[in-house]
């Protein structure tokens, strides 16, 4: 059973919350929307995101619904190629088919961009694409998220948004040398795999979100303001553009779910309390 799919089937909102444009638009170089080409600099090498605009030749304009679902759920292209998990399909796999297809409908409603993809520039051994098959066996748990009957409807909705859609854990969880999420330290913060970002601990640990109330976190996901009056920056400002498109109820569900997590001391030693 699927946890809690979006009732409104609002593709634009899901598209924003899932942050698709954050990676697939080369905003640092004023690139065209969804034309790809944004460089993601990682310890594994540099990924150049593909064009996901609906152009039939350079984008995904020829993809069927089944192609799109297979890409998001299993990380496989229509031609059968494995995607690197820099594309967060380990999170998107938990989305409902309805929500995945709502995102596809939205993408197919925006202008096509005739921009060719650029090959990734990866280090050895990561450049060997066959390795992704092994990676998937180790780390990919394919399939939609089951609802937890012992938790509230709000918690379950939050779980769905955090894990499947907004994919918070992809940056805020440390990864091992193969790029797999260390599930025991989920949300404990990380030297994120992308662009040298330091993603802070977002568990309810006292040095992390312990002193934030549910309201604090819900309003932060709308306006980016922390309880101390600071404002989110960098990639998190992009994330907040997405979460601010969600309903107030959805932002609250995210906050309820995050505040219910097990507190874990921060991965990053320099972290100090941000909730004062």
């Amino acid at each position, binding site marked *: 059973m699927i946890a809690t799919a979006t009732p409104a089937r609002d593709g634009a909102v899901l598209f924003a919350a899932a942050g698709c444009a954050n990676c697939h638009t080369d905003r640092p170089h004023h690139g065209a929307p969804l034309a790809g080409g944004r460089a993601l600099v990682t310890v594994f090498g540099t990924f150049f995101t593909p064009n996901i605009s609906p152009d039939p030749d350079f984008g995904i304009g020829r993809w069927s619904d089944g192609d799109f679902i297979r890409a998001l759920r299993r990380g496989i292209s229509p031609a059968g190629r494995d995607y690197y998990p820099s594309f967060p399909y380990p999170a998107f796999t938990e989305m409902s088919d309805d929500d995945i297809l709502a995102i596809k409908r939205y993408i197919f409603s925006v202008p096509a961009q005739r921009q060719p993809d650029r090959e990734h520039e990866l280090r050895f051994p990561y450049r060997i694409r066959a390795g992704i098959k092994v990676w998937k066996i180790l780390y990919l748990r394919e399939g939609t998220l089951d609802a937890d009957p012992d938790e509230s409807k709000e918690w379950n909705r939050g779980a769905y948004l955090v894990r499947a859609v907004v994919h918070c854990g992809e940056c805020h969880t440390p990864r091992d040398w193969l790029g797999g999420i260390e599930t025991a330290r989920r949300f404990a913060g990380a030297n994120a795999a992308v662009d040298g970002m330091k993603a802070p601990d977002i568990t309810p640990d006292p040095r992390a979100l312990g002193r934030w109330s549910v309201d604090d976190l819900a*309003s932060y996901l709308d*306006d980016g303001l922390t309880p101390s009056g*600071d404002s989110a920056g960098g990639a998190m400002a992009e994330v907040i553009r997405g979460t601010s498109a969600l309903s107030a109820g959805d932002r609250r569900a995210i906050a309820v779910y995050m505040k219910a997590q097990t507190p874990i001391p921060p991965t990053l030693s320099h972290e100090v309390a941000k909730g004062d």
Partner: protein
Amino acid sequence: MDRLGDDIKAIKLYVAGQGAREAAAAAAKDLETTAPLVPGLFPPGSDSKALPGKSAAKPEIWDNPDDFQQLEQALTTGAADLRKTVDAGDVATIRDSMRSLAKNACGACHENYRGRKDGD
């Protein structure tokens, strides 16, 4: 910048029903007065590479002077607007005005131009 944060904090507390209206009004007035001074905090050579441990400013600020100037303008007008709404006292309007300032000025600038004090 810490002073702006303290002002925002006071206004947030009032909006949340946890702070005095007088404190919020004083903070909004201070914010309006302080906002135009922000450009002076970023003279050339004050980026995080030049002043490690002290500055979190990304060097890109000085590569995009027009954009940075627009953000400064958004901060000044947003702060003036927020002061007016705080004076008027309607909590829902204050919240909207604070959200606009946060997104169009604070967040928009931090997104591209605030790095880390350790220079990363």
